[in-house]
């Protein structure tokens, strides 16, 4: 479309000779440096293709001569982060559990690290907000099966509950019902109602409290205590609490008495490093308000 250029009268400059619907294009060439920078960026991009991974192939992609992968960056950054945290992590490792909360900086560090570790490792069972669900304890209330002191929590996290490790928490609710059980079906119902009464819940009509008390004393009190307040040595729940691990309706309690219970938790001492386990203990302890 190289038509003869002409002088534009308003500006006194030449046109390119291009015209669209009577609108003519002024000849305003780019400055030289601008154009050369533009060329340089094109050359640069070709260099990029060669040096870095870039082109998708059918099943793979070009790797680039540097063999660069973003994964290496992540590893390097993680290492750098560890080095950066080394000082505080060291302080955390040295400080006894009970003293961590006395140092605000250390506490903040442990809480932040504990929160992250909780999300990664504990949330699948206890929930992201640690509220648990039936059969997985709520860690935000004050009902503790194995103790809510920071040392108790630390031990539970380290070795877990009822797993193959000798150091794990042991204890089990036996099955009291069934053909071989200690209790007959109607006795199970009576004990279940007694347990509901312990936590202030309504009982079924015609239920005999005296019988319930007697049956409880001979079958349950060994673990749960005469008043049903539980025993943390054995992981026996406090039955006077308003919070129930498996549910507080009559049907669920009957099922618990009939079949027994025994939740498990893995021990984390071997899988997470010691400072992480410590941070988790601090975090969980703070969530529940501390004991």
């Amino acid at each position, binding site marked *: 479309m*190289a038509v003869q250029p002409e002088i534009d009268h308003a500006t006194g400059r030449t046109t390119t000779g291009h015209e669209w619907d009577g609108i003519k294009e002024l000849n305003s060439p780019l400055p*030289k440096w601008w*154009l050369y920078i533009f060329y340089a960026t094109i050359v640069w991009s070709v260099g990029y293709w060669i040096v870095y991974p870039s082109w998708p192939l059918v099943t793979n992609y070009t790797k680039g001569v540097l063999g660069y992968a973003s994964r290496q960056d992540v590893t390097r950054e993680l290492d750098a982060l560890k080095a950066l945290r080394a000082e505080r992590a060291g302080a955390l490792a040295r400080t006894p559990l009970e003293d961590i909360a*006395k140092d605000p900086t250390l506490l903040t560090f442990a809480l932040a690290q504990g929160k992250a570790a909780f999300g990664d490792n504990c949330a699948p069972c206890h929930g992201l907000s640690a*509220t648990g669900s039936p059969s997985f304890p709520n860690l935000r209330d004050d009902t503790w099966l194995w103790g809510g002191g920071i040392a108790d929590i630390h031990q539970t996290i380290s070795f877990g509950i009822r797993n193959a490790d000798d150091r794990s928490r042991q204890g089990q609710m036996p099955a009291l019902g069934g053909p071989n059980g200690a209790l007959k079906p109607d006795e199970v119902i009576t004990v279940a109602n007694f347990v509901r009464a312990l936590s202030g819940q309504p009982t079924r009509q015609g239920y005999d409290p005296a019988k319930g008390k007697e049956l409880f004393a001979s079958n349950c009190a060994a673990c749960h205590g005469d008043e049903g307040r539980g025993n943390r040595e054995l992981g026996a729940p406090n039955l006077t*609490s308003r*919070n129930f691990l498996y549910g507080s309706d009559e049907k669920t309690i009957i099922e618990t008495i009939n079949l027994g219970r025994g939740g498990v938790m893995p021990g984390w001492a071997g899988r997470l490093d010691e400072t992480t386990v410590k941070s988790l203990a601090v975090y969980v302890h*703070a*969530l529940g*308000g501390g004991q």
Partner: protein
Amino acid sequence: MSDVLASPAAKKGAPPVLPEYDDEPLYEGRREIYQQSVKGRLRTIKWVVLVGCLAVYYFLPFLRWYRGPNQPDQAVLVDLAHNRFYFFFIEIWPQEVYYFTGLLVMAALVLFLMNAVAGRVWCGYLCPQTVWTDLFTTVERWVEGDRRERMLADAQPMTAAKFGRKTLKHVLWLMIAWWTGGAWVLYFADAPTLVKDLATFQAPMVAYVWIGILTFTTYSLAGLMKEQVCLYMCPWPRIQAALTDQYALNVTYRYDRGEPRMSMKAAARAREADQPAGDCIDCRQCVVVCPTGVDIRDGSQMGCIQCGLCIDACNSVMTKVNRPLGLIAYDNDVNIDRRRQGLDEVYPIIRPRTLVYAGLIAAVGLVMLYGLMTRSFTDLSVLHDRNPLYVQLSDGSVRNSYTVRISNKRPVHRIFVLAVDELPLARLTAVGISMTAGDWPVIDVGPDSTREIIVHLTAQKPADLPPSSRVTFRITELGTGEKASMSDHFIVR
């Protein structure tokens, strides 16, 4: 207005030879501009502004300002590591960054006001590009000589002496550029310490990198690119053209007085013969002193940065030829028309546009001043834990958790008591925090810092409470009694 723009082109002489479009290069080569030195009132003002701006830039980091023990004593400091900005008596925390917004809004409005009063004065006098280019050109002139000498030398083949001069020029430019980058990083750390560290290679890598970047940009923008930055890179000329009006004072060639231009002798002859003769003697002094290579006699144009050097140049010519000064002057288009019609010139500085800008500047300034004066030294922020909203405890009571953040903006350790109003039966606890006799947590916060803690609020008789009730958290400093408060909700079901 269109009159002004159209006139010069229409006056161009014989039509230039048209090149075949296809033969032209894709780019426009740069015309080297050999700016000639000039003396005059505006040039003096430019010198004063230049020295003033550079002095502030280079020496401000060394100015001290005592703020208290353990506080930085640098008057202007951007403390990125601790998220603080210090400006004399002002200390800005990250959440107060709206002061910056206010400052930026003010800066924009001041630019608008300057523009409404006198066009691109910013470009001509204050813009860093102008200041540093002026400095670099001065160095160039000092080493290589004025316009004539430089043009001559550049037309000659390279000699050892010429090569030496050019090298010296670039070395001096690089030294200024390096010093410019060096001054920049001093705003981000304690200046005297950093200078020592830089000299002994103890400074952090990032400082050297920034000095490198700024050395490069200063050298290339002020030394190599000069006017190209104004012509091709800067957006302001385009924006400015849309913001101005016919009353703004701009460097103007008063063509009503200058045309028809002719030599001094021809003009004398014409005047004797009662023919029209303009004051412009076509000596091109106004063109050779122009830093952007503009011919102001073509009318107002984008390339002109309004530096006024052509005014100084032409005034000295007018003095020599014994004509009145001000053939080129700060004037507006309206006056050119008015003079032609025999009317008086008008310079309405105060008009709706300038009044509105000035009013807005005052308003923003007052708001910021009010903000600064009422700035509190204690901040409380409370965030209700939403997941879960509440937890039931073993005895049936209900607990809500909150994240409480206390900011102590004073340079001393302070101790606060945290309490809640409106829930007399509730108990406030926090892990790792001791309690007062009144059973409220006592929290100590370090100097000039923020502390975040998780607190639990427990209501003993949730049945007596509505599903959601308002609670106000209040911190009171022990001793001074300084307070801050924030409201949130307590949820029981």
